[in-house]
């Protein structure tokens, strides 16, 4: 069983784009198992950090329901709402604020849900991305095995160590996705002996497909909303 310090060394090597570690991972017969453990460990650690940060942020944030009640009371006293009420006595902000309050209430478990789901999300993203990137790399003439692809792209999840900053309440993470993609590019290039441009397209195919899928879903949702509005 791999020690935690070994896995953290692997993660930090991925974070710092250490090419020798990528090569060693390609030639490692246990690359898949170590990759799985690495992604899981990073997910667990980031989940715990995020939970602590969220918990502290909750303690440092005013009660959203009280705040919303004050906001509603003040908005109801504005000339705009007063004039609207004169025109339409049935006008009320209650349904809108009831929805916002319900939404705010549903967010209070976000920290715990995030902590539990982070390792699962990381593992699923790694596996799905790995499958697409492997197929793309092979179709571009890559020579690596599936285990080598996953072993090398797992190192790229070292970039997620940047998300440990979330242990500080209100802190913002940025740069992890781009650094992770650079790591995936290096991993695919090493695992499959690809040229720079081929590795680039293999690394980007998954995110491009995801972007297109989100665009299609977004357009579809917009079309449904427009149709519903016109029908109504």
């Amino acid at each position, binding site marked *: 069983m791999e020690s935690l310090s070994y896995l953290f060394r692997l993660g930090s090597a991925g*974070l*710092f*784009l*250490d*090419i*020798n570690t990528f090569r060693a991972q390609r030639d490692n017969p246990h690359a898949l198992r170590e990759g799985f453990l690495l992604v899981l460990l990073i997910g667990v650690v980031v989940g715990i950090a995020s939970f602590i940060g969220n918990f*502290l*942020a*909750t*303690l*440092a*944030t*005013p*009660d959203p329901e*009280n*705040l919303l009640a*004050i*906001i509603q009371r*003040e*908005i109801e*006293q*504005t*000339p*705009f709402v007063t*004039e609207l009420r004169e025109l339409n006595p049935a006008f009320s902000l209650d349904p809108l604020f009831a929805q916002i309050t319900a939404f705010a209430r549903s967010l209070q478990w976000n920290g715990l849900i995030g902590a539990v789901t982070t390792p699962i999300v990381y593992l699923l993203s790694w596996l799905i991305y790995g499958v697409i990137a492997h197929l793309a790399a092979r179709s571009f003439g890559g020579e690596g095995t599936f285990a080598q692809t996953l072993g090398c792209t797992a190192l790229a999840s070292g970039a997620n160590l*940047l998300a440990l*900053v979330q242990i*500080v*309440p*209100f*802190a*913002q*993470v*940025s*740069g992890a996705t*781009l*650094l992770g993609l*650079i790591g995936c*590019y*290096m991993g695919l290039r090493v695992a499959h002996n690809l040229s*720079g*441009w081929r590795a*680039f397209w293999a690394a980007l195919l998954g995110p491009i497909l995801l972007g297109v899928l989100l665009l299609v879903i977004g357009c579809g949702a917009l079309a449904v909303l427009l149709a519903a509005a016109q029908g109504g």
Partner: protein
Amino acid sequence: MSLIDTFNGALTLNQRVFAEMRDDSNGVRRGFLLILMVGLLVGAIQSASLLISSANPDQVLAEVLAGYRQSIEQQRATATTPEQREVLRWLEESEDELANIARAIITAPTILPRPVVLVFQALAQTVSTPLTYLSGMLLAVVLTHLAARQLGGKGGIRAMVAVGSLSVAPHALDALTFIPVLSFPIALIAWGWGLIILITGTSVVHRFDSGKATLAVLLYPSLLIVLGIFLSCILIFALVALVAGGGS
């Protein structure tokens, strides 16, 4: 070479430091450490400044209201229809209610005492600043690297990230941007100096002359700006056509 020597070498465009960062297998680690140092310095000073200014709720409230009034004045200058002027009148008459909302948000009780909350916010800004610099640097480096490879460059992405990290060094000047009058000139100097370091770094990594390195650095940002302007024009034309169609 120590971190301070690397920092000084980046600021003085020392070619030896650039070449060493390119060839060092620990170049990325050293580059990230440099970003961490600059980011923490800037973040700590800026958050201390923010802490001082936000310690007094009345002062924060006065700033919020001043911003609100300024925004209404700006919109009044562009309001052309009676409906727009009516909305502005409503907004103007709602200032007391807005002040009450802002006061409620600023002074709302929290489980932790207010000084602890302010310290958390300052700490968050401090630790987030290095990541903001890292993300900006990575985007610039990736776009530059793509252009450089298309222009025939032979350098690798790892070397580009290591050397590109040096371009964050002049942003140590951002620590002084809390001085109101000097804020913009200092930020501009830091940005321009960082750009020169990125151009020098690109020429070292890809073994380009300075003209080609400048082209590599500016190619994609220029294209993106042109594309942005083009898309904005299309959007404006589409909106005008939609409004005209709706009117007729």
